């Protein structure tokens, strides 16, 4: 690592210490501590994840969906061919009749089937657990969509318009939730998490599952949470509470 990066790291470390003193602990502290310097390799010491609290998620609310799609320049979905990075699923317990609502997006599996099947390696998992598609090596075979147990991926069926600089998209390639990697790498949180909090629900918690002090790690420790289709042993980074 060159000296510039080292000093930047030291600076960030200082900022983190300062933030720890100045801000409410547990909310922003871990974000700054984990902020990654540009060019710095992602670390497997971190495992980014999300906790969806279905008891707080409001039926019919689509704040997270809208925020995601505007963040990434994905047009508002209307047809079966339109991309949906995240969607709201309404649930009804078949035995008790209890209703729930929950957002479903890429679950950022630790053992991602999409990555296993991708012939070119375009689907890949970063060391910190974020699963991404390399827009430049995806050949559009859609095998990953066949393999994903959560219908989390979309194929870009048409020429794209209104692209955002942080989210390159392209006709003929597959895409999915990237956990707002551009925000996370700058120490931020995904757009859906922010929008849900802004809407007053705070149903999605984002953070480092490996950091025992983080809110997500504490809540996962405190209550029983579910990974969707845990029987498939994909070890999802997204967990659900209240199912």
């Amino acid at each position, binding site marked *: 690592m060159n000296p510039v990066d080292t000093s930047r790291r030291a600076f960030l470390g200082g900022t983190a210490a300062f933030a720890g003193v100045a801000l409410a602990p547990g909310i922003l502290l871990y974000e700054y501590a984990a902020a990654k310097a540009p060019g710095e390799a992602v670390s497997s010491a971190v495992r980014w994840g999300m906790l969806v609290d279905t008891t707080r998620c409001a039926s019919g609310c689509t704040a997270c969906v809208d925020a995601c799609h505007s963040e990434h320049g994905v047009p508002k979905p209307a047809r079966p061919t339109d991309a*949906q990075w995240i969607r709201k699923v309404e649930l009804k317990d078949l035995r008790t009749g209890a209703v729930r609502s929950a957002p479903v997006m890429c679950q950022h599996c630790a053992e991602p089937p999409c990555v296993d099947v991708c012939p070119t390696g375009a689907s890949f998992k970063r060391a910190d657990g974020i699963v991404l598609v390399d827009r430049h090596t995806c050949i559009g*075979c859609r095998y990953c969509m066949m393999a994903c147990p959560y219908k989390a991926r979309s194929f870009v069926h048409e020429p794209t318009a209104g692209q955002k600089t942080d989210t390159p998209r392209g006709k003929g390639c597959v895409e999915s939730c990237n956990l707002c990697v551009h925000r996370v790498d700058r120490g931020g949180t995904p757009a859906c998490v922010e929008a849900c909090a802004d809407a007053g629900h705070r149903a999605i918690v984002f953070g480092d599952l490996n950091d025992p002090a983080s809110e997500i790690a504490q809540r996962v420790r405190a209550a029983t949470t579910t990974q969707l289709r845990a029987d498939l042993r994909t070890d999802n980074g997204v967990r659900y509470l209240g199912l």
Partner: protein
Amino acid sequence: MSTRPAPAHRSPPAWPSGTAPRGFAALAAAGAAVLAVALGAAHYMEEHGHVVTGMGNQVVWGLPHVFALFLIVASSGALNVASVGSVFGEAAYKRRAPVSALLALALLAGGLMVLVLDLGRPERLVVAATHYNFRSIFAWNMILYNGFLAILVAYLWTNLERRFVPLSTPVGILAFVWRIVLTTGTGSIFGFLVSRQGYASGLVAPLFIAMSLAWGLAVFLLVQGALARWHDAPVPEAFRLRLRRLLGVFVATVAYLTAVLHLTNLYWAKQAAFERFILVDGAPYAWLFWAGWAGVGTAVPLVIAFHPRLAGPRATTIAALAVIAGAFAQLYVFIVGAQAFPLEIFPGYATSSAFRDGAVAPYVPSLPEALLGLGGIALAYLIVLAGARLFDVVPRGIDAPAADGGG
């Protein structure tokens, strides 16, 4: 088994003066026209994106994949005649090894063309050829397919070039082993999709091998009949009858494995809803399964293959056509039906969403998809046509004393 050395390997000139088949130009032009339309359709799909197809985010593989899978699976089975010749030394089969290998090559090329032109980014074939994810069965299949093409070329060469004839047996054995692996690999593309109810079975790979034998032989029978008429070189009756019976045996094997697959699925409670969809109330899949596959694709050829009064060449052709029609129905149910059925993401819950969670996905194939699929058949047809024109692959004259018994 016959012991008489078969005059299987003759050198060019392929066409003693006056015996060149008629109408090559017209036949080739017809095939080229279909191929050109298919390439136009593929270009149209690439220009506009897959939005002009019937495929969406739930049914992501559609009619093109039905055609491609049929051609690729049939390719391996089309080599069966050559394999019996090379591996088991049957003379009547060995004489037809070149046609068999040429057909296998043609079908595989046609299937790969469809598969590649359906990609979202077909122009990135270079990427696919230089970036391999060795954990991906798909990547392995690309190696298997290309290897098979190379082996088939070598095999044809050893059969047609007198100097290399002694090599034709070892190369034939290599091709035999390779094609078994290849068909297993093709079946495994689906076997790896653990999250899809339709594919989660260890029977998928053996079923694909049985299907390849039946479908490949059906195509071989059609092509053999057509080439014989084109060349005025009739297929010996005894040989055709053996293949007819063999077709019946293969079709029965496919039927047996398919029945076991569905019965074992029915045994697992969590698969029951999916089986009900495929077999009872999922239109058009249940129809395709019973009328298309079970009726046309299985019952008709079985009756023809074993009924003594249906032994004529025309009945054999009908049986072969019925097997092929049934194959398309079966693949459509297997590929499209399994995707149309909703994924079970929240067991124990009824689900609904704007992304069609919990709902059956509609799929209506579009014209460009169908044209692209037909293009794969056109390419295979052209390769066989050109191969038969250029090389001496069609056996003429009388076979060795008709060997009896099944092949």
